[in-house]
């Protein structure tokens, strides 16, 4: 053994590593500078073409800007001569015009129409490497311009960041426009904000069913009794399911078993139950004299995470649904709430209160280790929900007064405000794929 160590040392000593190694284990905190040029219009006389072009490019710019990762350069700063606007291929473009304005990504394209169908051809170029990264062609009607922009935005994100993109996703949430809590929805970028219910009553706990593109939620019915509802997005129809023994705090749907887990005050205090997709209780999962609430499935449907005050203060626990073994995950803070399991299955986000008496968002591994704070000194930050690709967390914050919806990267960076209405927002639930 001593011999082998000696020989190893000799080997190292007589054969020094000649190359000069430099580790790069950090990245810049700067956003990615990208120039997005309005697609050139083939037929300048066609007003619809110009309009589609504007809608497309506005949507694309907003998507990339809201994502927080991109620095979308103002078109006012572009110095490319007008006569070169129609040059779309990497071999034709003079990249010096774009290097001078510090762009690293360049989007150009053109739009034409055949009868009432539009054809948009888009290119993404790498200014530094002076090469084309991706090119896409979209064919659609005028009212599909936004959808096409979302799809090209996802392609840009995939080419530059290596992620799938979430621009074509939606967020459901509870809004409070006239002092009454209603179910609302919006696109990822905050557009298409719309009220779904008009119950003029309390609506809570939206939860996505990705199988049928529907949203479960609870509300008081006309008899002032809690009731489980299902909003079918494609049919724009609300189905009234079963009445509930008590108001629900937190619903979660598992696409594998097609079951729902929810806290119900069925037998006195709040316990977590397994329900079928019609809302009928199948099984009681927790049984404790203290409160158990805010249940959320793991992505594989085999475990759930929930909040209980069984050990004194509100802490996060997880349960194996087969063995029903419960493991405590958090041991710090108070008022821990709203745990949400990441779609990748490796993290749990939740809100909790520190000694500063402010609620903030935290994230930890699924065994409770590696606890990290994501928000700090920005009012109360609550109700985290993961993007379907696991690359963003949406949450509510009252940092500007009213409670608004924000999103951020899972490390807390790139926080962006999504809603700006003069009323409160609660319980965002990001679409699941």
């Amino acid at each position: 053994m001593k011999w082998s160590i000696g020989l190893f040392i000799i080997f190292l000593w007589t054969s020094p590593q000649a190359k000069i190694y430099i580790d790069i284990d950090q990245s810049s905190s700067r956003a990615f500078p990208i120039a997005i040029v309005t697609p050139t219009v083939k037929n300048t006389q066609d007003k619809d073409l110009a309009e589609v072009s504007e809608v497309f490019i506005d949507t694309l710019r907003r998507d990339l800007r809201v994502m927080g990762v991109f620095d979308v350069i103002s078109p006012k700063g572009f110095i490319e001569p007008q006569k070169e606007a129609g040059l779309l291929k990497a071999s034709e473009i003079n990249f010096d015009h774009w290097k001078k304005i510090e762009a690293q990504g360049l989007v150009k394209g053109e739009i034409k129409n055949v009868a009432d169908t539009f054809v948009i051809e888009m290119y993404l170029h790498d200014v530094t490497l002076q090469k084309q990264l991706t090119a896409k062609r979209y064919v659609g009607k005028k009212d599909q311009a936004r959808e096409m922009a979302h799809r090209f935005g996802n392609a840009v994100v995939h080419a530059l960041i290596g992620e799938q993109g979430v621009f074509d996703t939606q967020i459901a949430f509870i809004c409070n426009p006239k002092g009454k809590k209603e179910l609302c929805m919006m696109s990822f970028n905050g557009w298409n904000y719309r009220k779904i219910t008009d119950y003029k009553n309390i609506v809570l706990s939206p939860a996505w069913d990705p199988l049928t593109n529907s949203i479960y939620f609870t509300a008081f019915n006309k008899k002032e009794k809690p009731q489980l509802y299902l909003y079918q997005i494609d049919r724009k129809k609300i189905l009234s399911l079963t009445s509930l023994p008590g108001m629900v705090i937190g619903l979660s749907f598992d696409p594998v078993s097609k079951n729902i887990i929810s806290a119900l005050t069925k037998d006195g205090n709040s316990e977590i139950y397994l329900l079928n997709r019609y809302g009928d209780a199948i099984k009681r999962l927790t049984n404790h004299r203290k409160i158990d609430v805010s249940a959320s499935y793991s992505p594989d449907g085999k475990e759930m995470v929930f909040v209980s005050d069984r050990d004194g203060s509100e802490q996060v626990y997880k349960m194996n649904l087969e063995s029903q073994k419960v493991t405590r995950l958090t041991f710090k803070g108070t008022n821990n709430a709203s745990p949400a399991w990441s779609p990748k299955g490796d993290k749990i986000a939740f809100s909790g209160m520190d000694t500063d008496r402010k609620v903030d968002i935290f994230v930890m591994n699924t065994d409770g280790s590696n606890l990290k704070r994501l928000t700090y000194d920005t009012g109360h930050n609550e109700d985290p929900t993961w993007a379907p690709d696991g690359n963003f967390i949406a949450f509510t914050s009252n940092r500007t007064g009213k409670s608004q919806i924000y999103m951020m990267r899972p490390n807390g960076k790139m926080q962006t405000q999504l809603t700006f209405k003069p009323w409160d927002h609660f319980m965002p639930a990001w679409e699941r794929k």
Partner: protein
Amino acid sequence: MIACFILWIQAKPIKIKKSHIIPAHVVWAPTVKSKQKTPEHKLPPPDVPRTKPEPPKEKAVSLEKKPLPKTPKKEEEEDRKKQLADALAQIKQQIDDRPIPKDDNFASGPEDKAGTLTSEQIASLQSSPAMDIYKNDIQAIIINNFLWYQSDTHWVTKIEIKLASDGRIVDANVLESSGNISFDQATIRAVKKSSPFPPPPATLIPLFKQETIVFAFRGSQL
């Protein structure tokens, strides 16, 4: 085996200096944070920078292995300041004394006649304060140009470059691909965007003439 034994006997009296194994800057490493005990019911502080962070010029660089975290003590900090001041003075002197290269490539520079460096000379230059400072400088430049946003991936890309005496990159290739095109492109972009680097100090020019630089981009620790 006998040859190995002779080598072992020969090698035995040689005392390997600490700086040959662990780079001297490890002791200085100002970015190594001491672990503070978190009081009960006190949640940890955010790792989110509340202001835009400065480019991490002081980031420690490891030559081969990641050094173990070590808390800098006051004495060590004093030493570090002194060594840095000495090194800076030395580099300043070197810059003043440095001959203006006739050609921008090493291949035809005046140093060409100097011959090949021995392994001892390479090791000595590798662990010199000038190398430490120069590496930190170009590391900070690369990091500033490295725009990558995923935090939970485990990509590793190694880019090998050949440096000219004026700091320009005269040759570059991907030594090891991560398998992720986007990550690889982000690393190539960072290196290309960083060229030209500051000219290396004169004492290091023979080393850069002979050897290449390898940037090891690691996605898992971002």
